[in-house]
């Protein structure tokens, strides 16, 4: 678990610090995978699956846009800078083990299951969310169709 936390902080820091955008996205992919493993280890299996499933799509799009947006250069990046960044990130992860904020205790019972919470308590939210996603999908189709017609 401790190694997981260190890996999480290191990969997140490298995602921000590394100069090459492709390496940054690869590092973000590691971060997301480690977050999903952390969720599953903490009995949040559904969250882990959602995290992985949604992040795969996001990362694929990010990789593609990396190729479009980043400028190609032949200069070699110094390894020293990456190692220094890793050392800083390991130092940054130390407070996770030393400092403790604590979780507030509660007396409210927690006997609601995931499916109950999803469909009985948040059903309207879920349906509206589905509508929003469908609207986004429809918007993308319309934009692509308009572009196709213009190119003709």
């Amino acid at each position, binding site marked *: 678990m401790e190694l997981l*936390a260190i890996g*999480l902080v290191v990969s997140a820091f490298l995602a*921000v610090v590394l100069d090459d955008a492709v390496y940054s996205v690869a590092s973000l992919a590691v971060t997301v995978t480690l977050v999903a493993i952390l969720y599953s280890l*903490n009995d949040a299996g559904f969250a882990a699956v959602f995290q992985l499933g949604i992040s795969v799509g996001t990362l694929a799009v*990010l990789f593609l846009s990396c190729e479009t*947006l980043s400028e190609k250069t032949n200069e070699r990046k110094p390894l020293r800078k990456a190692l220094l960044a890793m050392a800083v990130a390991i130092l940054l992860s130390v407070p996770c083990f030393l400092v403790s904020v604590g979780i507030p205790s509660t007396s409210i019972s927690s006997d*609601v299951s995931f499916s109950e*919470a999803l469909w009985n308590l*948040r059903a309207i939210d879920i349906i509206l969310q589905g509508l929003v*996603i469908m609207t986004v999908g429809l918007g993308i189709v319309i934009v692509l169709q308009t572009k196709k017609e213009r190119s003709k």
Partner: protein
Amino acid sequence: MIDYIVLSMTLLAIGIYGLLTRRHILKILISIELIATAASMNFILLASSLNRAMGETFLMLAFSTDTCITGIVLALLIIVARKYGTADIRKLAEIEWQEKVDEEKGNSKEIEGDV
């Protein structure tokens, strides 16, 4: 024993650092992603430690909203980068400022011509 609140705060700090110091628009987007991940991680780990299924339900909603936002922002970034030929946010700001200056100069010349 790991304190997850401190862990998510560290991730949040890294995201904010990236947001303030990076110039490439993709890096800025990655920083925003990290901030969103930190927020949802804090939420879900707190909920799971309290044995609440509601946390996971809300997280699902947060994930889909976050993904929609990322998709739209990424599309806008690609359009801007293709239009101006750069992905550097400071250069983009300079170009916008230069365009405004040119527009103002053009307006003043038109007024002088009328007089």
